[in-house]
């Protein structure tokens, strides 16, 4: 009987240890919090794993995470640097107005609810931003980039990753070599002003702009061999300047027809300027 009770105690002790969340030997858990300015600057280096940055209405910086990698941190109330050696899954809460700089090799980067400036770099990871940051720079070689919600200014660059920009942004720039670019721009009906300035370039990927142009806005689309598709409201007031060297132009927005790879027409004065250039890809224009 005594021996049975001894075994039962041992089993219960093991079970209790597991229930208390002891990390596996190959996983470190880290958690730290510091007071932080509402517009402070945080620099995060995490080569592999996942980085999730969340804006909150608290003047402090909090980091939690786990992984075989190790976390080192240093800084002040206005600037802090977080460096991971190895692989880690990081969750970093920052004040909404913070400036955030992230560098990774293969880690995916997610940013939610940060209104400050974002500078996000990855080699092979995906980048997702949800919210309304004032300024976004996002670069990844192979991963996709998605910005949702809108931003004052966004510059996105990939080599082969797809780019999706949606929301009410004012100044957009996207460039890719072989990826596709899709822009879904909200107009004033959904809280935006339409795109005031947009430049979208691809070498072999398709470029699609689907949205509303700001009054007086300038939008340029370019692809060497990918298709360019432009869908705008039928009531859009703009000067259109579409040129392809060896491709075709299809216009379903108005009755104007292209001649020798060139289509130039205006739907009214004082509107936007839309330019599309293609070497051998098709250009299509239609009403949404």
């Amino acid at each position, binding site marked *: 009987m005594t021996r049975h009770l001894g075994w039962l105690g041992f089993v219960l002790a093991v079970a209790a240890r597991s229930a208390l969340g002891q990390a596996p030997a190959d996983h470190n858990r880290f958690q730290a919090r510091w007071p932080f300015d509402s517009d402070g600057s945080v620099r995060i280096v995490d080569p592999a794993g996942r980085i999730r940055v969340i804006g909150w209405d608290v003047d402090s910086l909090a980091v939690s995470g786990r992984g075989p990698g190790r976390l080192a941190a240093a800084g002040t109330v206005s600037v802090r640097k977080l460096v991971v*050696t190895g692989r880690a899954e990081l969750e970093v809460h920052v004040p909404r107005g913070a400036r955030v700089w992230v560098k990774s090799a293969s880690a995916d980067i997610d940013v939610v609810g940060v209104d400050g400036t974002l500078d996000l770099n990855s080699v*092979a990871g995906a980048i997702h931003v949800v919210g309304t940051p004032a300024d976004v720079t996002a670069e990844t070689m192979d991963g996709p980039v998605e910005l949702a919600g809108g931003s004052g200014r966004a510059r996105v660059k990939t080599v082969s990753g797809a780019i999706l920009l949606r929301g009410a942004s004012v100044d957009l720039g996207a460039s890719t*070599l072989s990826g596709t670019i899709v822009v879904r721009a909200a107009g004033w009906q959904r809280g935006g002003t339409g795109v005031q300035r947009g430049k979208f370039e691809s070498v072999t990927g398709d470029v699609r702009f689907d949205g509303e142009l700001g009054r007086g806005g300038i939008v340029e689309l370019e692809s060497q061999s990918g298709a360019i598709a432009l869908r705008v409201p039928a009531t859009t007031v703009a000067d259109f300047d579409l*040129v392809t060297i060896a491709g075709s132009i299809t216009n379903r927005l108005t009755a104007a027809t292209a001649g020798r790879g060139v289509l130039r027409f205006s739907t009214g004065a004082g509107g936007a300027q839309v330019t599309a250039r293609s070497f051998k890809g098709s250009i299509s224009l239609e009403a949404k």
Partner: protein
Amino acid sequence: MMCNEWEAQLNEYVDGTLAAEARALVEAHLAGCAGCRAAVVELRALVASAADLPKRIEPARDLWTGIAARVGKREVRNGKRWWRTALAAAATIVIGFALYRLLPPSAVHHRSEGTGWVAVQAEYEQASDELTRALATERDRLAPATVALLERNLAVIDAALRESRDALARDPENVELRGLVASVAREKVELLRWATRVAT
């Protein structure tokens, strides 16, 4: 307290990635700013503490193996890194200037004069070659997957360049074609610059 406007430069300074001129500017600022000097001490401590962390951490995925190998090699070859980065930067400035001469700020307006086009192309070739050479010496520091991606996309961009240059040879005064050739050339330089930066 650190001056906010110097934050990025101080980080680059501590990381050792600033060019000589920028480094001198930072050092001049540090001479008169106790807050930034303290920040540099703290950043250096951070880098040192990161360096003291375990060197070998078993990766959960194969991808990290390649990255760890590159990080390991960096310290040994640190002396070569600066001039390669500088070379890449210089090449980028040359091609940037060349493309600036070719294209005004807005691609809507095209410079019609043909003067300088040949020179611009030669400058582009030189910059592209310099970046390619700089990258070749660092190639083994890139992960195999990145090298494969780079080669695949360089092939794509070279094919696009050949195609548009052939078309331009048949229609040399076509300003639209020049603009497209310049755009693809810029993409190639950007790709090479990016790969060089990742490698170093």
